[in-house]
C-alpha cells in the first residue's frame, strides 16, 4: 500500500501561484480530503501527484520513490474525474476493462477484475450500456469501477460528486467510503464541499489561496478548529468581536462585545486584558430563552427556517452581530419572527481567537 509525500511543491502559471510550498504526508490506507474554496490550488496538488502537471518546484514521492518526471501512465494510480470522463464511444464494460487491457494483464485477469469491480458498484447488469444511457450517479459509479480496475492501491478522487444532484451525492458518499475502506486503498479526495469532506475522510487538509490552512481529523476541525477560517468554512459558525476587559482567572475571562454587552469566555491561551478577541460558535451550541439568563445577550428573531428535524433561527443581537441558532424540533418552543429573545452562550462551547489584524471579514471570506 502506498504512502504519499509532497515536499515543497510549488506550481506557478505565469505570474499566478496555484500552490506555494506544500508539504504533506499521507499514510498508507488513509483517506485524506483536500478541501478548500474554488481556486485554492487543491486540484493542482492532485494533478501534480498524478503527473498530469509537473510542479514548478518540489517533488512528490509515492512509496518513497520520487515520481517527478515519470509520465502519468507509468505512475500506478486510479483517478476519478469531476466530469466523470467515461469514454463516450465505449460501453460500460469496455470502459471498465480499459486499464487491465492496456496494462496487458491477460484475458483472464481482465475479465475477473472487471466483473468484480462492476459488481461492487452494482453495475454488472448494465455492462453493455453506453455512458449516455446511464444516469449521472451510475456514470460516476462506472467511473469508480474503471479507476479501481487499474489495480492500484492509490485512488485520487477529483471532485467526484460535484457534477451530481444533491440527493445522489449523499448516496454515493457511502458507496465511495465503503469501497475505499473495504479494499484498503489510500485515497486522496478533492472537494469544495465541507460536509462531503467531513463525512468521508480520516483527515482533512484545508487549503486557501495556494497554501495549507490546517490539517486534522474532521472531528477536530469541527469541534476544535485552530483557525478562524477553519471555524467558518468547516460547518457554519456565528462570530462576535470584542475585547477582554479583565484578568485571566481559572482560564476564564470576560469579553465586552459591541454596545457594552459582556460575555464570560474561556481563555486557554491566556490573552491579556485589553486584547481584541473573536468568538465563534456553532448554531447547535447556542440556546434561546424568553427569560434573561446567565451569559446571554438579547436579540430579535429575524428569520425562522425549517430544516427538517430542527429549526434554525437567525437572530440580530443587541451587539449588532447576526447569530444562527438551531434547536431540535422536539424541544422547540416555537419562537416567531420579531420575537425578542435572549441568546444563551455556554462558555465551554465557545471557540475563542485573537482578533485578526486584517479584519474579521477578510479572514472569513469564502472566495
Amino acid at each position, binding site marked *: 500500500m502506498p504512502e504519499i509525500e509532497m515536499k515543497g511543491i510549488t506550481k506557478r502559471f505565469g505570474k499566478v501561484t496555484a500552490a506555494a510550498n506544500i508539504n504533506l504526508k499521507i499514510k498508507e490506507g488513509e483517506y485524506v480530503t483536500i478541501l478548500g474554496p474554488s481556486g485554492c490550488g487543491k486540484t493542482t496538488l492532485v494533478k501534480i501527484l498524478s503527473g*498530469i502537471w509537473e510542479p514548478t518546484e518540489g517533488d512528490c514521492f509515492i512509496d518513497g520513490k520520487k515520481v517527478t518526471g515519470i509520465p502519468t501512465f507509468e505512475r500506478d494510480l*486510479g483517478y476519478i474525474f469531476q466530469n466523470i470522463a467515461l469514454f463516450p464511444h465505449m460501453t460500460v464494460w469496455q470502459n471498465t476493462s480499459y*486499464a487491465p487491457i*492496456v496494462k496487458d494483464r491477460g484475458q483472464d485477469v481482465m475479465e475477473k477484475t472487471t466483473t468484480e469491480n462492476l459488481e461492487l458498484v452494482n453495475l454488472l447488469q448494465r455492462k453493455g450500456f453506453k455512458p449516455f444511457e446511464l444516469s449521472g450517479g451510475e456514470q460516476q459509479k462506472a467511473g469508480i469501477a474503471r479507476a479501481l480496475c487499474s489495480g492500484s492501491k492509490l485512488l485520487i478522487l477529483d471532485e467526484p460528486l460535484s457534477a451530481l444532484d444533491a440527493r445522489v451525492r449523499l448516496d454515493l458518499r457511502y458507496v465511495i467510503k465503503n469501497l475505499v475502506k473495504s479494499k484498503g486503498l489510500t485515497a486522496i479526495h478533492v472537494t469544495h464541499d465541507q460536509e462531503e469532506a467531513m463525512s468521508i475522510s480520516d483527515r482533512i487538509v484545508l487549503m486557501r489561496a495556494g497554501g495549507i490552512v490546517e490539517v486534522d481529523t474532521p472531528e477536530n476541525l469541527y469541534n476544535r478548529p485552530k483557525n478562524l477560517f477553519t471555524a467558518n468554512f468547516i460547518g457554519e459558525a456565528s462570530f462576535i468581536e470584542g475585547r477582554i476587559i479583565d484578568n485571566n482567572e481559572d482560564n476564564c475571562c470576560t469579553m465586552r462585545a459591541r454596545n457594552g454587552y459582556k460575555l464570560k469566555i474561556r481563555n486557554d491561551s491566556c490573552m491579556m486584558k485589553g486584547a481584541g478577541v473573536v468568538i465563534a460558535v456553532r448554531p447547535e451550541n447556542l440556546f434561546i430563552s424568553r427569560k434573561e439568563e446567565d451569559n446571554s445577550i438579547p436579540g430579535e428573531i429575524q428569520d425562522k427556517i425549517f430544516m427538517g428535524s430542527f429549526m434554525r433561527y437567525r437572530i440580530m443581537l443587541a451587539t449588532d452581530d447576526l447569530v444562527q441558532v438551531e434547536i431540535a424540533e422536539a424541544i422547540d418552543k416555537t419562537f416567531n419572527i420579531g420575537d425578542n429573545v435572549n441568546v444563551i452562550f455556554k462558555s465551554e462551547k465557545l471557540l475563542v481567537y485573537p482578533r485578526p489584524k486584517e479584519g474579521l471579514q477578510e479572514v472569513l471570506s469564502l472566495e
Partner: protein
Amino acid sequence: MTLSEKISDFISQKKVIKGWYALVIIFFIMLVIVPTLFVLTYAFTGWDEIQETVMKAPPEIQYTDVDLNFHNVSIIHSPDIIDVTDPYSLEVRYNMERDTSLNYTVYLMDDEEREIEFQDEFIVNGTGTVWFNASANDTHNHFHHVGEGFQTLVVSNVTWTPEIWEEEVVLRSGSRLPWDMVKDALIVSFVIATIVTIIDFTAGLPMAWLMVRKDFRGKKYIDTLIDMPLAIPTAALGFSTAMFWAVTPGLNPYGSLSLTSSPFILVILLHIVFSYPYMVRSLSAILHEIDINYETAASTLGAPPLTVARTITLPLFRAGLVTGIILCFARSLSETGGTMAALAMMTPSLGELAYPMKTGPTLIGAWKHAGGFEPHLAFTAMILVIITLILLVIIKIVIMKFKMPLRKVFPGPERLLSKGVFPKLKDGLSFLFMFLVLLIPSFFIFSFVLTGDPSPVDWGGFWGAMRFSFLVAGVITVINLIFGVPLAIYIVRGTNKIMTNILDILVNVPLIVPTSALGISLGMFWGSMDLGMTTLLVISAHLAFTFPLVVRNVAGAMEELDPTYEETARTLGAKPMFVFRKIVFPSIKFSVLAGAIMAFTRSLGETGATLAVVKEANTVPVYIVGLVKSGDYYPAALACIALIFISFITMMAMRYMTKKAGDN
C-alpha cells in the same frame, strides 16, 4: 421616439423578421443552390445531344488533306484558332490487335513558308496514345508515349500542315470517345484527391496534435506558417511548386530540385500544399473540442500516449474527421488554376488538350477555352457534381459506420513507441514535412525572381486584371455579408428544425462541388436566362462558392454563443434588433470578419469557376495562368508575387484585428 428606434422597432416585429428570413432563404436557394445544381437538368433537356456527341462515335470524317494509311488509328487535335505562333499538337490514339509498324512524316510550314519535315517510326500493339507536338516556331518535338504493350506503330506518310486545321475543327475517333477522355480525367482527379487526402491526414494529424496538445516556444509562429499557403492564390502556388519539384523545360531556377517529370506526382505535391492547412485546421478544431479529460483518464489508467491516441482520441474524432477529409478532398478535386499552371510548366508549348494528363477541372477549362464543346462540358460537370455528392455521402457513412480496429491494444509495442526517441522523431518529421512540402515550394517563386533573367512585364494588363478581380471579390463579399449572416443565424437559432437541417446540408453543397463544374452549371443557368453579361456571370459564380465560407464561419460562432445570453437580454426587455446589435453582433463580429476575408481571398485566387463560366474573363489568376502557358515566366512570377503580397496584407490585417479583439 427617434427614427432609428422606429426602424429598430419595425425590424423587431415578428412578421418582419420572418419575412426577412424568408427572403434570405429564397436568395440562397435561387442564387446559390439552384444555379449550382442546374447542370443536372441537362440530363433531361440535353441528353440526346450528349449521346450524340459524347457517348457515340461521331461519323467518319473525311481527311481531305491528310493522307493516313493506317487502321484503327485516329487523330484528335483541338485548336480551332489558327495562329501559327500557337503550339500545336497531334494526338494519335491507336488500337491494334497485333504488332503494327507506323511510319509517319509530318510537314510543317512556318509563317515564312519554310517547310519542316519530321519522320519517325513506331511499332505499337494494344491500346495507347502517341502525341506529336510541334510548334511552328519551335523545331523541338516532344513525343510522349502512354499505353501498354507499346511496340511499333507505323503511320505512313502523315502530311500535316497548319492549313488543314481550318477545315478540321475536331477530329474524333471511332475507337476513342470523348466519354473516355472524361472518364480518364475524372479517374485521375479522384485518385489524386484520395492520395492527397490520405497524405494530408497522415501528416496533418501529428501536426494538429502538436498545435493543440503541446506547448512549445514559437508555437504561434508555426501556427501562422501553416496558414501561409492559404494566402497565396493557387495559380501562384502551382507555378512556384512546379518550379521547385519538377523538371521544367526551358526553366531551371537556382535551387530547383527537378526531381520529377511525372505530372501525376507534381499535381499531388501541389494539391498537398493548399489542402494541408485545411486538414490541420479542421483536425485542430476537433481536437480542441475533445475534452482533454478523456485522454488524461486513459493515461491515469496506464495507457501510453500512442494507445491513448488510437483508442480514445481517434474514435472520438470521427464525426469531425469527416469535415477535414471532405474539405481536403473537395479542394483537391476542384482546383484548376494551380494545376493548369503546373502542367503548363512541365510541358511547355503544348496545347491544353494535349497535356499528357488532365484532371476533371483542367479538362473543363481546356474545352471551355477551345469553345464549341457545350455538351461535353455539361456532361463532365454533371458527372462531377453527381459523383462528388454521392462520394460526400459515402465518406460520411463510411467514417461513421466503419469499425476501425481501434479497440485492440498492443501494450508492448505501443509502450515502446511512446517513449524515448520515437515521439521526438514524429514531431521532427511533422515539422520537416511542413517546411519541405509546404513552405519552401510555396515561396520558391521568390528564388526564381531573384535569380532569373528579367524580362519586360505588361503591368497595364496586370493591373487591369487586378481591378477586375477586386471588383468581383468586393461585390461578392458585400452580398455574402448581407445574406450570409442572417442565414447563418437562422440555421443555428431557427425553430423549424427540419428546415434548418436541410439548409445546413445545402450550404455545404457549393463548398464541395468542384468550382469548375459549378462554373459550368452557373454559366448554363444564367446563360439560359440570356443575360449575357460577363461581369455579372463571374460575380454570380464567385458568389456561389464563397457564400458557404461566410455562412460556415458565422454559424460556427453562433453555435459557440450560448443562447442564454440572448434569452437573458430578451427577458431584460430588449427587442430582437437590440439584442442583435448589443449582444449577438459584438460576440460574432470577428467570425463575420474572418468569413468575409476568406470569401474575399478565395474569390481573388479562384481560376476554375472563372474559366468555366465565361471563356474570356480577365481575373488575376487567369491572367497568370495565361502568362505561364505562353511561357512568359518572369512576368508571371512578378504578377504572382504582387498577388501574394496583396493577399498577405489582407490576411495579416485580419489576424491583427482578430488578435486585438482577443486582447480585450
